[in-house]
């Protein structure tokens, strides 16, 4: 199953859906725990095994999840776990964790269910573009179906009980991955973050908490999970995110109308580097891809699609390159492979 994933990408990278020029994807995750077990930090090996087995069996039988592919993370290599993380099918913590744990995901990579992450169950749905309602509809249904099979830890006062009190209540984290190169170039990004913080949302790097911001990609998500219903959380995001995207669009227009030559030079130079470079680090690739993506979305570059670029953001990550090549590679070897992979994808046969 993993092999099938190496050379393709998930549906959420299609570059389709509302606001897809800026909002790459929408993700919702729900944190759930079983009522009759301790949380994982206090569960012993035997209990972890029991929780994993119980949830795995239910996933394999429940109507909406039985077609998902289940992988026990202890059965696969470190590179494969990193691969699943780069793919956003599992979290960084889940990739690096220990003990009995697993993940179930579908062929389109829209749905994934992590077992024994920080909570017993982390259900996630990712959609291309700005599709919160759609993502909620899917995840709500999966949650309902699993809930019939599993006894969730729930209290009328505090809602769904989670290992960390920052997730208690709805257990829901809704987030959008946005590409904001123009706000970065015009030095307005800090303003956005300050404003967003005041509205109860937080900004993070590509792979969640504490991760580096690369390629002008940011994740904006709700900070509070208690005291607001799922619908209210979605409504807040729906009122804030379009303001950020229109701010980014405004910055793009300003760049075009006032600094056209500089912008053109920047995006075409980046495109040239991607098409001709022989050595590319992951950071450099992300940076150049971001510039070219900006060029494509403002209509300066027409011979490559945003979808191709979206895919390259993921396919050029370290674990992806190693799986593509079928062996473990040093960083210097990866940089050579990355450059040749990008050249080929951008139609340069030299």
């Amino acid at each position: 199953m993993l092999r099938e994933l190496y050379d393709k990408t998930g549906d959420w990278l299609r570059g389709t859906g509302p606001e897809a020029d800026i909002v790459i994807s929408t993700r919702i995750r729900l944190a759930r725990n079983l009522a009759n077990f301790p949380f994982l930090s206090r569960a012993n090996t035997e209990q972890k095994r029991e929780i994993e087995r119980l949830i795995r069996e239910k996933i394999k039988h429940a109507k909406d999840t039985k077609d998902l592919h289940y992988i026990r993370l202890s059965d696969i290599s470190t590179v494969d776990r990193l691969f699943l993380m780069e793919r956003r099918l599992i979290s960084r913590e889940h990739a690096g964790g220990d003990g009995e744990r697993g993940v179930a995901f579908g062929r389109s990579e829209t749905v994934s269910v992590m077992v024994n992450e920080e909570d017993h169950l982390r259900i996630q749905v990712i959609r291309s573009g700005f599709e919160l309602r759609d993502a909620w509809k899917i995840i709500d249904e999966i949650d309902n179906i699993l809930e019939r099979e599993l006894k969730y830890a729930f209290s009328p006062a505090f809602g769904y009980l989670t290992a960390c009190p920052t997730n208690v209540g709805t257990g829901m984290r809704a987030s959008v991955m946005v590409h904001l190169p123009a706000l970065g170039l015009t030095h307005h990004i800090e303003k956005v973050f300050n404003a967003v913080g005041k509205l109860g949302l937080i900004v993070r790097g590509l792979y969640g908490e504490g991760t580096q911001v690369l390629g002008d990609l940011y994740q904006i998500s709700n900070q509070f999970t208690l005291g607001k219903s799922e619908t209210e959380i979605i409504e807040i995001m729906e009122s804030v995110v379009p303001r950020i995207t229109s701010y980014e669009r405004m910055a793009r227009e300003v760049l075009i109308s006032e600094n056209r030559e500089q912008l053109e030079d920047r995006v075409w130079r980046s495109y040239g580097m991607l098409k001709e470079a022989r050595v590319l680090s992951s950071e450099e690739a992300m940076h150049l891809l971001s510039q070219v993506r900006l060029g494509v979305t403002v209509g300066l570059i027409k011979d490559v699609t945003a979808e191709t670029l979206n895919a390259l953001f993921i396919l050029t990550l370290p674990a992806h390159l190693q799986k593509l090549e079928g062996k473990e590679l040093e960083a210097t070897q990866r940089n050579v492979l990355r450059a040749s992979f990008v050249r080929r994808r951008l139609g340069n046969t030299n």
Partner: protein
Amino acid sequence: MKCESCNKRHATVHLTEISGNEKREQHLCDECAHNLNNQLIKMPSPTDILANLINQVAPEIGEMSKTACPACGMSYLEFRSSGRLGCPMDYTAFKKGIVPLLEKMHGASEHIGKVPSRAGKELVVKNEVLQLRKELDKAVEKEDYEKAAKIRDRIFELSGSDDVKGTLRQDG
């Protein structure tokens, strides 16, 4: 040498105190030295000082510091230092400390939103009505009476009472 304090027993403890450039020596018997030590012991220990400080900064920790969850055995202090709870029961066991914490974290301490259907139909309905009432307020605020009427009908349907209906008629 006789003890400098009682001048009776033999001095077995020899203390040297240096303050500035002055050196002061004391020769005491066991008993007198012990009494001196007791005075030293009466000084608050670092733990006491810390506990007092915690009581000033976060009173709930002081009060909760002796609490542990009967189900998983986790103590409240363990939770505060790791930030992770031990089991679902902790929310009940540590309620007193957790409520203010949740207030700080989320600006709220009560769940509104989805309820698992096995938690009981009554609770599901109660939560839905709670949500609908909020939506109703919003719709009225926006003067979207068509939407408000629909929400009102749904609340009416769920709660089986017509008090909401009456209120809205007056408003509209």
